[in-house]
């Protein structure tokens, strides 16, 4: 068979909802492509973005991917909320096999293609700037990592039109995910999408660990790095240590499904509980991979908007690294009900509860940073404050779930679902949004519209509470997760309230989209002239907004924990900038299409493996290898930015900053 299992039956012509959804997505994609082509943006996009190896551009592309996938994942969410609001003694509008695909796709998208790219994007963008570096350790690999992540997201979305997605939840637990019980291509879409994007994530992790540990401005010792760099280090160490386990586990399941192996089957000695252990050995560190960078964002934001240095910097570093270590010692709390016995459960219950200690240290440090400060309630700070309140609630329900006897009652109930939405929305997503608002002016040279940002913030926060606090009640009332329909009258009011919450969140998302459009239109008024819109303290605010490709005209020499704050205070006292430095030529890595081309082949490889089109898989694998050989053969991997050009860019920023100092001097004279 030339096309493997792929036939016309794979297109869901008899199911209106996915067909219409896919049609809308298709029309939007085609419209965007036509618009880009007609406007003549293709060469610009190819040269400046698609082949870019600039960490800032790649970071921005990660965030864009995350925002687009957030919309897709949210549509899934509101569809589920609507289904549960109406499916009382009724079938609702989503048939079970479709409902099951939606909750699986929702979780997969939100974790792997929203939360992950969002935090990796923020780290990519900000960390080299904060370290006083010109780039990351491996710029081209960085691009490969991004494009492989995009491939994974693309495959999940292709499953909407061609074939089906997994019906097994966001983690495909065997034996349900084995070929015998899931004979379709849904689980295969899941597996290949995550195997490919997992490589991308691993590459990003290796790159960022090496960057944080090896690439610094002179004098930037480890204990002078901003908190965000520390949490980036911790998070990426976890990626390097945990993602290979995910890959290995998914490989085992793939072998079960494709070649009749017996890792997790019911027959021939397979052990499905081994899957639970392996997947959660990755899965628990994964939640810290997501939350730790956000803790870093909060540290930056709280300190900047309280106009004070971060309280207890070293205890914060310690708390971060302790969480990094402890996160590998708690995985069994995801399945206390396995029956490992009281002793094992007690050990894992205690280690889980202990994580609350370093997290508590962090919360108190943020509170003490605010204490006595002049707090400015800008949008990033609002997200940070909402996080502190929300995350404490989520953390307390987490500690409750860490008590094995309580967990036996609450396992797989909506209480659990409410808990992890509480920490992931209230912790990770709020943090990502804080970082997005905070670094947006640095990335694009103008601030986001403050009023719309605040309106969207309030919708999100209120919407979250209305949508998820009922989940705790429902869980205590005995409602289990992933129910397509139900017949308990007590649940209905709460589910209708939760639906209302989802609608309020929808308003928040609409306002965020509006915020982007309005901010672009009013960019002249929102312009960040000097590159320091928030009166920042860490080094990234010493660069112009947006920063030039080389970040720093001259590498700064670091002499304290808040180098930029010190430079700024000195300038404010003396009312003049430091003397102009001697500019030199700067070598920067050349752009490369390697990432895009290898992801192109990886997409075909994944698609071919899903549909058993073996010849195409072989061809695509060869293409990916050939791409790397071609890359390895190039002779020039760097280009020179001449000293004149560097001087021109830096002088423009210096004159903008001097103008501010002159205004300051004039004000002092007037007084």
């Amino acid at each position, binding site marked *: 068979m030339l096309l493997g299992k792929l036939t016309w039956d794979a297109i869901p012509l008899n199911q209106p909802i996915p067909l219409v959804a896919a049609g809308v997505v298709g029309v939007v994609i085609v419209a965007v492509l036509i618009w880009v082509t007609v406007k003549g943006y293709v060469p610009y996009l190819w040269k400046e973005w698609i082949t870019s190896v600039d960490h800032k551009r790649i970071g921005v592309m990660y965030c864009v991917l995350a925002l687009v996938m957030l919309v897709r994942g949210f549509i899934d969410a509101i569809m589920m909320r609507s289904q549960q609001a109406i499916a009382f003694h009724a079938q609702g509008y989503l048939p079970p096999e479709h409902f099951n695909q939606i909750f699986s796709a929702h979780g997969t998208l939100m974790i792997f293609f929203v939360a992950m790219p969002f935090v990796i994007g923020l780290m990519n963008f900000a960390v080299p700037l904060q370290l006083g570096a010109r780039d990351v350790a491996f710029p081209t690999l960085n691009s490969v990592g991004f494009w492989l992540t995009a491939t994974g997201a693309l495959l999940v979305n292709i499953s909407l039109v061609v074939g089906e997605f997994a019906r097994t939840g966001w983690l495909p637990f065997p034996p349900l995910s084995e070929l015998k019980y899931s004979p379709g291509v849904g689980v295969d879409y899941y597996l290949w999408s995550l195997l490919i994007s997992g490589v991308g994530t691993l590459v990003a992790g290796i790159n960022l660990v090496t960057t944080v540990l090896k690439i610094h401005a002179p*004098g930037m010792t480890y204990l002078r790095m901003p908190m965000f760099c520390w949490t980036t280090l911790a998070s990426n160490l976890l990626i390097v240590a945990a993602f290979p386990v995910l890959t290995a*586990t998914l490989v085992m399941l793939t072998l079960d499904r494709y070649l009749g192996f017996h890792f997790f089957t019911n027959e021939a000695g397979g052990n499905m509980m081994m899957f639970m252990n392996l997947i959660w050995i990755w899965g628990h560190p994964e939640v810290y991979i997501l939350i730790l960078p956000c803790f870093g964002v909060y540290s930056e934001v709280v300190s900047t908007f309280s106009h004070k240095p971060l309280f207890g910097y070293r205890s914060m570093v310690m708390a971060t690294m302790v969480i990094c270590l402890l996160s590998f010692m708690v995985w069994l709390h995801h399945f206390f009900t396995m029956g490992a016995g009281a002793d094992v459960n007690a050990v894992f219950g205690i280690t889980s509860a202990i994580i609350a200690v370093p997290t508590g240290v962090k919360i108190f440090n943020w509170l003490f940073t605010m204490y006595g400060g002049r707090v400015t309630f800008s949008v990033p700070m609002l997200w940070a404050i909402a996080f502190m309140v929300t995350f404490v609630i989520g953390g307390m329900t987490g500690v409750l779930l860490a008590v094995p006897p309580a967990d036996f009652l609450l396992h797989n109930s909506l209480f659990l679902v409410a808990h992890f939405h509480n920490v992931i929305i209230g912790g990770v997503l709020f943090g990502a949004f804080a970082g997005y608002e905070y670094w947006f002016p640095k990335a694009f040279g103008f601030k986001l519209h403050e009023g719309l940002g605040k309106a969207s913030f309030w919708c999100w926060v209120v919407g979250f509470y209305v949508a998820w606090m009922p989940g705790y009640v429902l869980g205590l009332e005995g409602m289990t997760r992933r129910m397509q329909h139900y017949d308990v009258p007590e649940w209905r009011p709460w589910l209708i309230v939760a639906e209302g919450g989802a609608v309020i969140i929808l308003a928040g998302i609409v306002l965020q989209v509006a915020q982007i459009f309005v901010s672009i239109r009013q960019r002249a008024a929102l312009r960040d002239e000097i590159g320091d819109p928030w009166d920042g303290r860490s080094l990234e605010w010493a660069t112009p907004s947006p920063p030039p490709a080389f970040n720093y005209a001259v590498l700064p020499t670091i002499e304290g924990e808040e180098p930029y704050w010190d430079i700024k205070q000195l300038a404010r006292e003396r009312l003049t900038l430091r003397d102009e430095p001697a500019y030199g030529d700067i070598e920067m890595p050349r752009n490369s299409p390697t990432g895009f081309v290898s992801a192109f082949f990886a997409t075909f490889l994944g698609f071919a493996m899903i549909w058993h089109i073996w010849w195409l898989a072989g061809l695509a694998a060869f293409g990916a290898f050939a791409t790397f050989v071609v890359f390895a053969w190039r002779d020039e991997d760097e280009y020179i930015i001449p000293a004149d050009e560097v001087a021109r860019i830096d002088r423009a920023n210096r004159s903008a900053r001097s103008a501010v100092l002159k205004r300051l001097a004039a004000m002092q004279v007037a007084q």
Partner: protein
Amino acid sequence: MSGAHAAADPYRIGHYGGSHQYTAEHAGGGLVSKRIITGYGFWIFLLSDIIMFSAFFAAYAVLVNATADGPSGRDLFDLGNVALETAFLLLSSFTCGIASIGAQRRRRGWFYIAMTVTFLFGLGFVLLEAREFASMNAAGYGPSRSAFLSAFFTLVGCHGLHVSAGLLWLLTMMAQVFAKGFRADILRRILCFSLFWHALDIIWVGLFTVVYLMGAGQ
């Protein structure tokens, strides 16, 4: 900083020595050479690769007795064959080291000969392993026979795939030196390749012990 702030955090708890002014350390913040950065990054990749193997090792340890009334390691493993494989792999690591020295000294002939010998030993290893797999398969003891055999084929096969990928990489490196000479970036790649090749030895030592020695001795 204004007085109000100092009152809110008078001791600057957690900040080094109270204030940056007392900080004298400058170490650890200098600029690092590309060679160090590449080697360091590749080490981190190798660690992640070893962690992936550890998952396969763990699966093997869990499933080693799940033979489903089929054969166990004791019935299947031929230690003579394994000894030969081990000898091939360890010798290839030695010649790989010779090739690295050749590259450092910019001796093309030395480099080519040592890399060729490394390739032949590696190829011999892969062929011996393929023969072992084929004979087990032919006897009806393929990976679908039992969970034990699934874990065995996956763990050992994953190492074999790594060696095969290494062979492909080895040939690419020889071609690169032939076409480009000992350029700085190519020397960095040779460094990474030799790290990779030696790491496969380390994994093989674990594999040889846990799978074959412990399996045959049961």
